């Protein structure tokens, strides 16, 4: 619907950039409508137990690391991601963190010096 409002739809012969997204959204709305009716008519109700605290934390963590990455470089950014995600679990140990971080640093060195990727390892 956003496509319909912001992009020209054109005709079937000469389609504009909004035609295809518009038709796809209409199809999606129809399918959604059918599913809505089916769910109302359903005799059996299934409850889904969503646990949103950890999923939201992980999502926010990746976004925060993504924005910090250009300022601190890849090695600290990845380390930050690993330590902050690892310690969600109380059994996570500092030894494991350092071992796996060392592995990632080796991988980063391979990416940069063997494959020639332009990754900033450490931003001073």
């Amino acid at each position, binding site marked *: 619907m956003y496509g319909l409002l912001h992009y020209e739809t054109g005709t079937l012969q000469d389609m504009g950039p909004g035609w295809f997204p518009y038709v796809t959204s209409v199809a999606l709305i129809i399918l959604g409508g059918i599913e809505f009716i089916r769910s109302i008519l359903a005799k059996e109700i299934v409850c889904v137990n969503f646990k949103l605290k950890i999923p939201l934390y*992980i999502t926010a963590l990746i976004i925060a690391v993504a924005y910090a990455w*250009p300022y601190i470089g890849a090695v600290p950014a990845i380390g930050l991601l690993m330590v902050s*995600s690892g310690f969600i679990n109380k059994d996570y140990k500092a030894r494991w*963190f350092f071992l*796996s971080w060392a592995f990632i640093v080796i991988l980063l060195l391979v990416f940069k010096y063997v494959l020639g990727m332009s990754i900033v390892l450490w931003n001073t």
Partner: protein
Amino acid sequence: MEYLILGIDTVFSNYNWLYCIFGIVLGTLVGVLPGLGPTATISMLLPVTYALGPIPSIIMLAGIYYGSQYGGSTTAILLNTPGESSAVMTCIDGHKMTQNGKAGPAIFAAGFSSFIAGIFATLLLVTLSPLLSVLALQFGPAEYCALIALGFLSVGILTTGDIFKGLGMCFIGVLIGTIGTDIQTGVIRFAFSYELENGIAFPIVAIGLFAFAEIIKNITKDQINELYKGTIQLFPSKEEFKRIIPPSIRGSLIGSLLGLVPGGSSTISSYAAYAVDKRFGNKKVVYGEGAIEGVAAPESANNAASQTGFIPLLSLGIPENATMALMLGALLLSGIIPGPDIVSREPQLFWGLAISMLFGNLLLVILNIPFIKLWVTVLRIPYNTLYPVILAICCLGIYSIHYNINDLVITAVLGLFGYIVVMLRLEVAPLMLGLILGPMLEEYFRRAMMFTEGSFAIFIERPIALVLVLIAIVLVVIGIINTFKRK
């Protein structure tokens, strides 16, 4: 026979076999690492091929290409993270097999079925190349549209068993696929303030919806243990080995035929092979619950398609995807012009490539069998140690695609969306198909409508398109009946 000897002679002279081994090992590695696909690897190696010459170059690049198809399946099976778009279907039964303690047989099935497909496709390449290239030319915009629509329907119905939910997921994928520059008008759609002119790359969506969602799902569990706690089977039993062969042959046939159709055919073929096998394959097993057939069918199909994809590339100069376009570039750089007469004009290149594929596929199985034990060891690492590493490798892979932090942000949001989708017991595979094929459907549909001045008659007037449309209609009817029966 004379040509086969020429091919063998080409592979085993001038260290060409070494380039083949280098290609498949590198291909397997880039297939395993999410985000770093064969396209990026080949583009980095393109300057090297200029110095190597056409034959070693194409042998090495082909090795990278089909090696990555195999490597992509390993992470799909073990970690539910498809390294390649063609490995999405392998996740369904492959990862379920891992959860059932059968990671070894699943990896073996992926390798062995790819080997069967490799032999099948290579034989097809050497025997039917001129004839099949003519068949490929029969496909116009209408046929492509009908084929893609058929793909949507078959995957939508057969992976979820519910046509409405399956198609709904497909259309969400199609909508995500519309993000980026509209090819015909140059208008940038749905980019908002992000740098999304080129759309959202496949690895971003795949890692978000599969890997991140899987990690989130696992760590929200009350108890985090190993990926699998019991005894892990390393190799398939005699009975399982026998079960690999029929779906591999069916998958090889489907993949070989669809490989001739330019445009993401190794992905389409893996979806088609899974759908066909689920419908007509072994009725005694439950697909989606860890059936070895569900690994063998898509894996053989994507490998066969990636090899027969060389037929339109060499005889017509039509690359089936971006990776093949780079290989075409490497050939052109070396002064080789593809054409229908390439077999007679460049027999050493053609037969050398064909035999190198046979050799490479055999090597893939031999080299990877000892690695099964190593790969399976990953499952023994406590998950609470493993998931930060997987998360880090995924982020690294995504960042290295465009060196853009927005890609990471999008993947994180898609990960949360993927978790919700998994919790609602919806299938992600149709969404991935919609994302991959949606832009192609739009392009071909627009072309078809432009040719016919907005008339749908083209879908009836052209025989191949008509047959595909009729099959699609039958599928819709079957899908609706099955959905309401299930209820």
